[in-house]
């Protein structure tokens, strides 16, 4: 599971098992990939250092340097708390809440492919990387189907979901023996199995996702809110839809490490649903959903650590608890907000010359 191999896959190159097939160009790409990967491993080291320092300062048992995996789990959790609701906001408001579930199940097929290849031809690649690749292909497929049939349709989503899971279980049962042991970790997530490699993969995904959303949030918002008007204003709607589903695939795989395949979609949906109840503006709802998600993740990880329960389950339970509170708060808010009705002005035909007059000078 070397950084070089991981780097090559991240850079979009097929992993070549036979070294004689490696092209000179690929060596260069490998080097870049390795450098980037090394950089994120270095970031991880700094994170360990910071949390150790925090442990000595506060004495919180969860941060004890003896449990380095907890440090990584917290880092992964924090990243998930940002990127899942960030993407989830765009999905939920397009009635695509279930696409996360569909992609998670195909990501499971990707994990199975990775485990299978590792067992059969000793590829030595992280199953999370194959999961990213397979989930992104599935995401594109769902999107293309919807473009051809003019609608996202429950049926095609359900078919992709079950195909993914069926493929996964089949591949895993194919080489039963050693494999079944590792499957639980992917199905239900596990704090203790967050390895430095998978944490670094997550950091890469995090940077890609947050960066893309930062640069394209206007277009994503426009497409989400009003697809036709967005198309008229010259936004290539189909491309932004493809970007959205590909980012979703990345989030799902990233979050799978501690959430597990079955519960990962909850992080895309539940905090966003909660934020929708209490926020007025879109930017507010983005911020609130991230705050709610972080709250759920950190509380969930803490409960999981001290009570010894599965992190994924408890995180979702906490998130749902927060959602219920948000619904109640939203009801109170709207009950109080309805008292004041501002005065609606009239449409002023005369004032248009101000806006249209800027061509004169």
């Amino acid at each position, binding site marked *: 599971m070397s950084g070089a191999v991981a780097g090559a896959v991240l850079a979009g190159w097929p992993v070549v098992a036979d070294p004689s097939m490696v092209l000179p160009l690929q060596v260069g790409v490998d080097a870049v990939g390795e450098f980037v990967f090394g950089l994120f491993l270095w970031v991880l080291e700094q994170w360990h250092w910071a949390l150790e320092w925090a442990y000595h300062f506060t004495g919180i048992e969860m941060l004890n340097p003896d449990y380095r995996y907890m440090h990584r789990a917290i880092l992964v959790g924090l990243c998930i708390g940002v990127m899942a609701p960030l993407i989830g906001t765009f999905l939920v*408001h397009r009635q695509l809440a279930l696409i996360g579930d569909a992609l998670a199940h195909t990501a499971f097929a990707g994990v199975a492919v990775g485990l299978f290849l590792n067992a059969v031809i000793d590829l030595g690649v992280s199953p999370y990387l194959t999961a990213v690749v397979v989930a992104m292909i599935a995401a594109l497929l769902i999107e293309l189907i919807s473009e051809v049939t003019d609608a996202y349709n429950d049926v095609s989503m359900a078919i992709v979901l079950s195909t993914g899971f069926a493929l996964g279980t089949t591949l895993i049962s194919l080489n039963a023996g050693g494999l079944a042991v590792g499957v639980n970790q992917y199905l239900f997530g596990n704090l203790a199995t967050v390895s430095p490699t998978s944490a670094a993969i997550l950091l890469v995904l995090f940077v890609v996702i947050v960066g893309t959303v930062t640069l394209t949030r206007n277009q994503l918002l426009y497409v989400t809110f*009003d697809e036709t008007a967005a198309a008229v204003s010259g936004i290539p709607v189909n491309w932004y839809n493809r970007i959205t589903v590909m980012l979703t695939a990345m989030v799902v795989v990233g979050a799978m490490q501690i959430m597990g395949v079955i519960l990962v979609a909850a992080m895309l949906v539940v905090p966003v649903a909660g934020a929708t109840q209490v926020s007025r503006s879109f930017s507010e709802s983005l911020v609130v959903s991230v705050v709610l998600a972080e709250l759920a993740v950190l509380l969930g990880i803490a409960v999981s650590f001290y009570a010894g329960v599965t992190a994924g389950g408890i995180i979702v339970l906490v998130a749902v608890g927060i959602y219920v509170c948000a619904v109640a708060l939203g009801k109170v808010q709207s009950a109080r907000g309805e008292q004041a009705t501002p005065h609606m002005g009239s449409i002023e035909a005369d004032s248009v010359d101000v806006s249209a007059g800027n061509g004169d000078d």
Partner: protein
Amino acid sequence: MSTQDSDAASTAESATRTATGSDADTPTAEPVVDLSGVTFGYTSTPVVTDVSLAVDQGEYVAIVGPNGSGKSTLMQLMLGLLEPDAGTARLFDESAVRFDDGERIGYVAQHASAAKEMPITVREVVKMGRFAHLTLDGVGDLNRDTIGALREAPLETVRAGLGTVPAIVNAIFGRLSRSDLAIVDEALETVGMSAFADRRITQLSGGQRQRAFIARALASEADLLVLDEPTVGVDAESVDAFYDLLGALNDEGITVVLIEHDLGAVVDHADRVVCLNREVYFDGPTEAFVESDALARAFGTEARVLTEVDG
């Protein structure tokens, strides 16, 4: 000469606006919308058949027709959202489907399409009208002129170049500038929605919501406004004010294409009427339309009822 060229490039947008601001029959004016022999069907049955239609700059055209007559489809063909099965659709002298100069078009729909339950404020909706202006077009094209200018007056050119840096940064990060926000506020003011700017759009009535969408089209400062039954659900008083607003915008030189079911409004406001029922039944000045029998032919029995009601 070099300065002249760069001037022309930098003021290209305002130049087109001034051109549209003057009379519609300016010599260089290409038709804004140009459909010739357009046929389209979602299935093998065509929804519009052999429609030819040209809209010039500064015109105020209303497209009328009974339900299911292909008005909305025709509009989508005009805007390049659909590709004709036969014939050509051109927008600002470019293929409509490939047209991507979105800031030249403002669009107001019957608002079934927008995700209304989303948490979003009126101001955020209107801001969307400015997104199409956040492009790198015309910002920092490095050409021979720039190099020449660098040689002649290095300091000034560099200073001018640095002046465009905020615009470039805004375009990349999608941040609206202060002048963009001022235009947004102005558009809100124009439709009388300033007091509602920070209201969530779900809390508004249908008419108020429609005003917000009209404000978005205004904020886009488009050369062409396309409206698909924009006053559905708007209270009667606001409807009149809204048509006055459209008239005023048209007087400023903005081309208006209005798809409308309310024949009374069309007769009162539009300069030219296109009567459609799968094919064009009438295309001409509003006065001639009122006198013609196109209405009865296109609408069939339904129109007789309508005209009787209108008196």
